[in-house]
């Protein structure tokens, strides 16, 4: 009996044909440390209209206006006191002994 070409083709159809398979790579296929970053919605400044920018500024100012502010004299005195308490250990103000200087140029001869 002679097999028809059609039947032959059916039996020996290309089994490597993968067009029908879902070829999307799954997120979990990647090792955890190298997963592609999913993009978060970014507010692109170029997309903001002038009105959006004005609104953003108004809302920000409304938040900032509520701040409780300290007297500058007290703040400055605190900064001054902080510095005074630390300044004796401040190498760049007080200087450093040559033998304790980690950056000094090494080399040179010692005459015994």
């Amino acid at each position, binding site marked *: 009996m002679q097999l028809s070409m059609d039947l032959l083709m059916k039996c020996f159809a290309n089994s490597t044909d993968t067009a029908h398979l879902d070829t999307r790579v799954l997120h979990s296929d990647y090792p955890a440390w190298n997963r592609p970053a999913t993009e978060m919605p970014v507010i692109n*400044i170029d997309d903001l209209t002038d009105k959006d920018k004005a609104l953003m500024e108004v809302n920000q100012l409304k938040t900032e206006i509520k*701040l409780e502010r300290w007297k*500058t004299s007290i703040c*400055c*005195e605190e900064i001054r006191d902080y510095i005074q308490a630390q300044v004796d250990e401040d190498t*760049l103000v007080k200087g450093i002994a040559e033998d304790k200087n980690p950056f000094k140029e090494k080399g040179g001869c010692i005459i015994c």
Partner: protein
Amino acid sequence: MAAEKAEIEKLKKECDGLRKQIETARKAVNDGDMKGASSGVESVGRVQLKKRKDLKGHLAKIYAMHWAADSRQMVSASQDGKLLIWDTHTGNKLVAVPLKSAWVMSVAFAPSGNLVASGGLDNMCTVYNVKAASPKTLRELDAHTGYLSCSRFLSDSEILTASGDTTCCLWDLETGKQKVIFTNHIGDCMSLALSPDQNCFISGACDSLAKLWDVREGACKQTFSGHTSDINAIAFFPSSNAIITGSDDTCCKMYDLRADQEVLHYQDSGLNAGVTSLALSSSGRLIFAGYDDFNCHIWDTLKGERVGVLSGHDNRVSCTGVPEDGLGVCTGSWDSFLKLWN
């Protein structure tokens, strides 16, 4: 269109009104500045530091440097397309990281010393593991739509970036995703600094404003104005209650966070160059500010006077840094050299 324009006018009027109210509130607590509080403080005299080392190795302009937490290693970035990690005690180069993009503008060392990050005109922040046998790219953080101007690690798993797209961003390094996006500046963000307790950070931008942000909430808490040009450099005062900014307008300013205003500015009529970078000495008494005039000028934080200068570079000083132990100061320049002084 006319209706929209009218709405914008109304909002702008509202902004003006709110700004006036904030200025009034600030004036109400302004009963003295830093000079007044320091009138009884002894002068530091002339601060004369010596250049201790020249670090030669880069072949093009140096744009950024950052000290490691051990106060010994330091990383520098140059447009020769390399990051170099130096042992500053010996002057030796420990690691060279070749960059995919040579247009680098920022570099950062993670507190652990395991990672460094860099980025620039490629709009990306690339994180490298520098403890591996040879430097390995760990992450490419790619979502900014503008250049990367600054980055700072909170830990090996989180990093903050500032971008020319006017936003700053907190990233999760384990997933490579953005965790929080900080939007409020209307000009390119040029620099950022993390508070010692890592709960907030400050950013300086081309809109001449400095902003204080809550790291977790993403909210802008305070805005500091006064500069008249791009703010290129910003740092926290060691007590965390004040910030110092440096700008293209040739001025540095100190703003107190609790008084919500400027308490001193550092300006000299003989200085006509923009400020590119700044760092404070360990007590906060001295400000080291790098300028376009090839020098790093030293300011007395309390009295607002110029007390010294680090001269020797043959081009703009682009970056300045003081290590955690405060034992020296490093300057990096477009002349391709780094210098260590103390």
